[in-house]
């Protein structure tokens, strides 16, 4: 697994020696587990039916839906590193709906829904993934990806606001 630097600390710009750095250090265990989950969701050793490139491209969409440029850039860098083919890279384009690729279409539809309005998700949304050929294990992998990214983006959003405090 890649030894990524702490993504949140980098994005928020927690300055070493600052008061915010000291507060965050009080929860160093949580921040380390957050980074480890990031690696498990974006670059797992065993990706199952969801490649690293697809994960990074879908995460780009999640960042865009959350209007978070810093995370968008971070996931774009992961996408580049994964060496995605043109088709897969297009998933990151928020205006792309999957086109003729039924599997992409199902992935994109679900990620957009759960990132933006999880309250509207129903049993039917899981059935649509199953009908597109996803296994139950891949459905859980996809769900963890969108759920985890939604968490990580919010932790960073909160820390940015903390950084703004005197």
């Amino acid at each position, binding site marked *: 697994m890649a030894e990524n630097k702490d993504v949140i600390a980098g994005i928020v710009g927690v300055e070493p020696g600052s008061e915010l750095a000291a507060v965050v250090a*009080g*929860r160093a265990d*949580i921040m380390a*587990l957050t980074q480890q989950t990031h690696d498990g969701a974006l670059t797992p050793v065993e990706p199952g039916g969801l490649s690293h490139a697809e994960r990074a491209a879908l995460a780009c969409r999640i960042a865009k839906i959350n209007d978070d440029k810093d995370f968008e850039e971070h996931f774009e860098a992961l996408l580049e590193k994964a060496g995605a083919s043109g088709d897969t890279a297009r998933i990151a384009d928020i205006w792309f709906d999957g086109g003729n690729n039924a599997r992409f279409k199902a992935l994109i539809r679900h990620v957009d829904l759960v990132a933006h309005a999880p309250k509207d998700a129903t049993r039917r949304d*899981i059935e649509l993934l199953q009908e597109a050929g996803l296994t139950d294990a891949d459905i859980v992998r996809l*769900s963890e990806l969108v759920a985890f990214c939604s968490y990580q983006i919010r932790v960073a959003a909160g820390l940015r606001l*903390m950084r703004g405090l005197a």
Partner: protein
Amino acid sequence: MSKVVHEFTTAIPEWKPYVRPLDLAEASPAQLEALKVTPSNTKVSDYVLVLAHDVETLTHRSPLFNGVMYNKGGLSRAEREIGAVGASIVNRCIYCAAVHASRYNQLTKDESVIAAIFADGTEAEISPRLKAILDFSVKLSKCPSDADASDMQALVDAGLGKDEILDLILSSSLFGWANRLMHTLGEPLAE
């Protein structure tokens, strides 16, 4: 005959997954290892067995979850539950809201706060400190987040220390994660 629960409640429903939980008989060594670190060893819930399909996140998720909700210092356990409830209301996760609202009630021996929140949401008449906590949690849980500098300042003005604010960010965000699993991968049922 059980029915799907659609309204917020403190009566904890049963959670029924839409996907097949992992069959323990088919679990890999890594899956068995990850399942060990869950709070209850005696009976693994269907929820955790569903999450075991993605062992590389589950391995870290369980200790992370326990740390955010229960580790020492910082925000009180009860107030972390309000962070969880705020997110669960935005995401309409009936199951998570029930579990964490009832935990708040148990910890505080006071049912009036949750009753007010379930009835009136962010308009609930609760103490200024709890209101600042609930408002921040609700706004951070929107997509995109709607929390701004004035909401952050409101936490400071309500007397929260920076360590407490960090814990609130973590518990609210954690339920942006948990709700997106619990509410999308299954449904809450009651008799």
